[in-house]
Each structure stands twice: as structure tokens, then as C-alpha cells.
């Protein structure tokens, strides 16, 4: 159960080795002992993450999740909830891909669509069915400002995030009154393993900053947050820039 101070006692990380997901787990572990279910591919990175969280006092379960595989997604959710209620579930995986290759390579575009859109919405439905039965719980969807106004420079990625973002906002509406809530997190450029080697954009944030904002958002029952918060204003401006001008912006 999420306690009176907003801290969960069980946390499911889908994409359990992502930097942001782990930063969220560390923040919660600092205030409360909790059960963490790490759903990810069985890699040394997952084992290392599990060991680190156990060191922080968490009870850790490792669950295999191959985001491209619908059966694996279903099995992962079943396994995660078999151990008891899940208070907070974070949908944290995603694939950036090479932007130019993505719109020219049919295989890569399908893969991005599968991992960044199909898998998250499939999991969103699986999660919300389980949580509706519990009548409590929070689903955190890690979206991106890239989906808010899609840019030429990475429009395939942006389009997948736009789709999943819209889905989770809608899911939050559909779940009103059920006791289950959805938080959509829209970070700007995050310095993480996913963006290693890319030049950092203005207003870049760290996974720790995203985690901090997410934990606060869950506590305050927010439906959507931008990280950093001023990104909201920037994006609302960008949304209304006419196409010819937008095209020429150096972003």
C-alpha cells in the first residue's frame, strides 16, 4: 500500500535496468523498505541492479521481460502480481535508435514502433486490469517531450512517444474513480545510457532529477509532469510555432 506519506511498499519497474527506473527505486528505498520487481532482460546489468537494490534493503525479485514479445509481457505482469499487490508500476523502457536510419530502414521503424508504442500500451492494459482489481495503485509512464511536438530530427522516436503519451493520458481518464491513477512524465533531454554520446540539449536533466520529480508527482497525485518543470512552458511555446519557422529552429 502507498502509505500516508506517499511512499509505496512495492514497486514494479518495467525496463528495470533503465537509469531513470533505478533512480526512482533508490529514492523510494531511502525512505522505506520495499519490494522491487525488476522486469527486464536477464543480463548482467539486471543482476547488478538487483544486487545494488538488495544492498539498500529492498526485497528484489527479478522477472524476465522481453519488450518485443507479447507472451513475455503477459508472463512478466502475471509474475509480478503473483507476489502481492503492486503499488507503483513504472513503464520505463524505450529505444532511441539512429534517427536517420529509423525512417529509412523498415526493420528498425517496426522495431521502434513495437518497443516504444505497442509494448507500452499492451502493458498499460495488462497493468490497469490488475490494478483495477486491487482498487489502488499508480502507473507511471515515462514519455518524452519529443512526442509533444515532433521534430524532423527524430520524428520516428517522437511519433512513438506521442502515441504512448496520448494512450496513457487517456488511460488515466478512463481509470478515474477506480482508485488507480496514471502519471505521465515528460522529461526533456536526459543524460543517461540511452543518450550516451549525443550532445546534451539545453535544459538537459539527469535521471536523478527525473526520479525526484516523479516521486513528488506520485505523492501529489499529479497526472502529468515535465522535467525540468520550465520545459512545460518551452513546449507550450513550441507547440504553436508555425511549421515554416519550426523547421528552421536549431532543435
Amino acid at each position, binding site marked *: *500500500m*502507498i*502509505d*500516508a*506519506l506517499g*511512499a509505496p*511498499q512495492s514497486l514494479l519497474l518495467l525496463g528495470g535496468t533503465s537509469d531513470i527506473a533505478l533512480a526512482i527505486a533508490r529514492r523510494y528505498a531511502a*525512505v*522505506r*523498505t*520495499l519490494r522491487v520487481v525488476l522486469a527486464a532482460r536477464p543480463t548482467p546489468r539486471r543482476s547488478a541492479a538487483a544486487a545494488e537494490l538488495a544492498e539498500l534493503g529492498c526485497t528484489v525479485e527479478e522477472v524476465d521481460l522481453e519488450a518485443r514479445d507479447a507472451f513475455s509481457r503477459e508472463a512478466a505482469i502475471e509474475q509480478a502480481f503473483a507476489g*502481492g*499487490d503492486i503499488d507503483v508500476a513504472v513503464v520505463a523502457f524505450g529505444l532511441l535508435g539512429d534517427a536517420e536510419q529509423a525512417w529509412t530502414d523498415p526493420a528498425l521503424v517496426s522495431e521502434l514502433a513495437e518497443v516504444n508504442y505497442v509494448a507500452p500500451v499492451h502493458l498499460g492494459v495488462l497493468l490497469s486490469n490488475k490494478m*483495477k*482489481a*486491487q*482498487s*489502488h495503485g499508480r502507473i507511471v509512464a515515462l514519455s518524452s517531450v519529443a512526442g509533444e511536438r515532433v521534430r524532423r530530427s527524430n520524428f520516428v522516436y517522437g511519433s512513438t512517444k506521442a502515441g504512448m503519451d496520448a494512450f496513457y493520458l487517456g488511460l488515466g481518464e478512463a481509470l478515474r*474513480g*477506480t*482508485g488507480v491513477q496514471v502519471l505521465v512524465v515528460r522529461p526533456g533531454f536526459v543524460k543517461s545510457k540511452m543518450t550516451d554520446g549525443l550532445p546534451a540539449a539545453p535544459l538537459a536533466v539527469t535521471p536523478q532529477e527525473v526520479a525526484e520529480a516523479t516521486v513528488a508527482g506520485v505523492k501529489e497525485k499529479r497526472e502529468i509532469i515535465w522535467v525540468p518543470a520550465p520545459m512545460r512552458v518551452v513546449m507550450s511555446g513550441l507547440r504553436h510555432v508555425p511549421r515554416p519557422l519550426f523547421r528552421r529552429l536549431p532543435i
Partner: protein
Amino acid sequence: MTDDFPYQETKITPSMPEAQPMVPLHGWGRASSTSAHLTQIESISGAVSALRSAAQSGRGVVPRGLGRSYGDAAQNAGGTALDLTKLNRVLSVDAESEPPTVQVQAGVSLDSLMRTLLPFGLWVPVLPGTRQVTVGGAIAADVHGKNHHTEGSFGNHVASLDLLRADGEIQTLRPEGDTADLFWATIGGMGLTGVVLGATIVLQRTESAYFLVDTERCTDIDDLMARMSEGDDGYTYSVAWFDAVSRGKHMGRAVLTRGNKARLQDLTPKLRRDPLQFVAPSLGTIPEIFPNRMVNRATAKAFSTAWYYKAPKYRVGELQNITSFFHPLDIVAEWNRIYGPHGFLQYQFVVPFSEDETFRRCFELIVNSGHVSCLNVLKRFGPGNAAPLSFPMQGWTLTVDLPIEEGLDSLCNTLDELVVAAGGRVYLAKDSRLSASTFRQMYPRLDDFLAVRRKVDPDGLFNSDLARRLQLH
């Protein structure tokens, strides 16, 4: 509309038809509310069939009284909550027997029970800080009053109780004999052994509904603890309010009130005409309009100073009625709304007398934390009882009300650590945030409780948000 109307086939039907609507439920602290199917229980047979149908749902059942526990004890997300407040009859009063007893249904409030008993010159032996609790809730939390050091907790005064068990059987339990284990697991068992349907309570006799009260102001925490340690045994009732905001030389200044039941000869001639009159004024209900942070450093400081100086420096033998001595908070209904929508939590702990240093450290931590509390109560407990989850144990107990704000988690965590290290514990009826592992350290007899619970409810039909949080399975 005809039968072959095409839309008949494709009409959307809700996927999960629900018998009862889901109702959001919260504790007195108004934080972490969840929804459950709330079923009104109006009869014993109603309770049995409600239990049976709830068994299908898979999320279990929790009994619920007047919802005066502060946290998630009477909530059950996605499952059923049985509202027992309509099962509220006083069945019989035996005023002649020695000691006198009363047989009640579990949903009766201590308020109406007292009103019924006073004309007989009978008195409920244990009263918590509000009369708006049910007998079932008083049993399930094993509540204590200002007289714990002389009378023990509520469970000590229950002669027998009727428990509706998970298997649908109703069993009468007594504190001794073959049913003793289940009896004591039910006392303080937070509704997790079954539904208490009724009980027989052992009463005391009284000549009046008044108290002879001595009030003293204490200059600081040391002065207070010294006076309590020395003088408490001369009084049936004793409690202190202390200032948890002021630092420096006023730190821990307190008002100590102690008293005994007034006898007829203690009353003024005017009061002697109606010595058993129940005085329960009401100033109405607090509306739901308060913002968060209404209780802040400035308001708390003003309140604390006023409360301290309002009390006489030293006064003996003042006659007070039930409400002013026992239940000043009951004058205003729903006062918890002043904390605003974020709600608040109450932290009550006890540590053994030998750990008075820890006690002082906890106290200083709270005062210096920057979190403000107005309702601060300090008391000395007498020995505990045989109930494995009962809270009271011989020692110092302290209660603070803390509005929910940033950083409160780390304050409470630090307090938990100190309390555990001192061999003390936190009160479940007030708790809304303990973790399962800390809880286990605080209640060394937890396994005794769980053994009884697993025997009487092997499938865990009785369940609550608190049970899930503390892993009481």
C-alpha cells in the same frame, strides 16, 4: 424496441458488474484513502451472509466501526468493508451482579453506552480520548485511557466476546480456558481474526459523572517527568499536554491534569441534585474548507502558548465534567478537517521507563524537527496484557499530531529506529506508515498472533490495507 433490433447484439455491457458501489474510505488522519464495497450490517444473519458473499471477491473483508483509527486499519482496497455501526444495541445491563456487567452489540459507541449506563450508576472502565468509537473498535485496537496505569486497557475488562469467524461460525470467546488464544489475538487484533459481533463488558460503579481534578503547570520536560513519576500513583486518571513547538527554556513546558472520580460528598449541593448527569456540549462541525498548512509554526505556537497559560499554575480539587476532563475534542465534530486535504498523521509510541533517555531524545527530535504539533500527550502506562498485538506496555507514551509535509518521513523513520532500539513500539490504531519489517521488530509476539490467525483464517479472508502494508498474513 423489437427483439431483432440490431443494436441489441452489440450493446456494450460493463465488463465487471458490481454488487455494491465502491466507496472511498479513509481513517481519521484523512491521508491515503482507498475504495471498498461498504456493506451495512444490521443483524447477525446479515453479517454472516455478507461475509459469505465477500468471500467470493478475492480481496477479503475488514470490519469497520466509526473510522476513528487514524490510518488504514479499517480500509480494504478493492475488497469489502463491513460497517457495524448499525449493529448498535445495548442488549442487557446487569447492575446487580458483582461486578456489574453489560452485554452489547459491537457497533454501539462508547458515547451511547455511557449515556445508557450512567443512570444506573455504572461506568465504562476504559475511555479513549474520544467517545466516538465503537465497542468493536475499542476491542480490536485494545484502546487505553488516562487510567491505564491503574486499570489497564479495554481488553482487560471484556468478560467474553462473540466472534464471527472466517468459516462463518460464531464462537463465544473468554479470556481464560480453551478459547483464550483466540480471545487475546482478537484483543488488539485489528479486525483480522474475525468480526466481533457482541461483547460482555465488566463495569465499575460510580456515584457521579464528575471528577476531582488537580492541575499543575510544569516548566519543562524534566519537571514534568519527575512530577508524573512521583505523583501518578495517587490518581486514577493522569495525563499531560505538553508544548511541542517552543524551544529553549520553555522546551517541554506542560500542563499536567490528574484526577479521581468524584464521590457524592465531593459535589456541590447543586450538582448533587443530578450527580449522574452526562454533560456533552457540542459546538457543531468543522466545515471542509481548510487549506493545507493551516496548522503551521505560527498558529501552533499561538495555540501552545494560550493552552499553557490558560491552565492554572497549580489548582487542586476542581470539579470537572466528563467532557471537559476526558473529551474536550468531542465538543467539535470532524476537527480533523483543519489539517486540510493532505491530512495528518499521529505518531504515538511507548518506551520502557528504563529508557527515559530515549524518550527525551525522541521528544527533542520532534520539537527541533520543524514539524509542528498542537495535540501532544504524554502519559505513563502500567503493565500490558496477554494480547500479542496490544500496544500498551509499562513505560512512557507520547503522542503527537503532525500535518503531512515534506521531510516527515525521515523524522518518523528516525523515531522508529530509536523506539525499536529502546524495545518500544508504535500504536497501530494511529499508524499509517510503518513498514512491515519495523513493525515486526516492535511487536515481538507477532508470531503468536500470526499462528492464531492462520489457524482461524487460513485463507486470509480478513484483510485490510493495514494488513497488506504490515504483512499480517
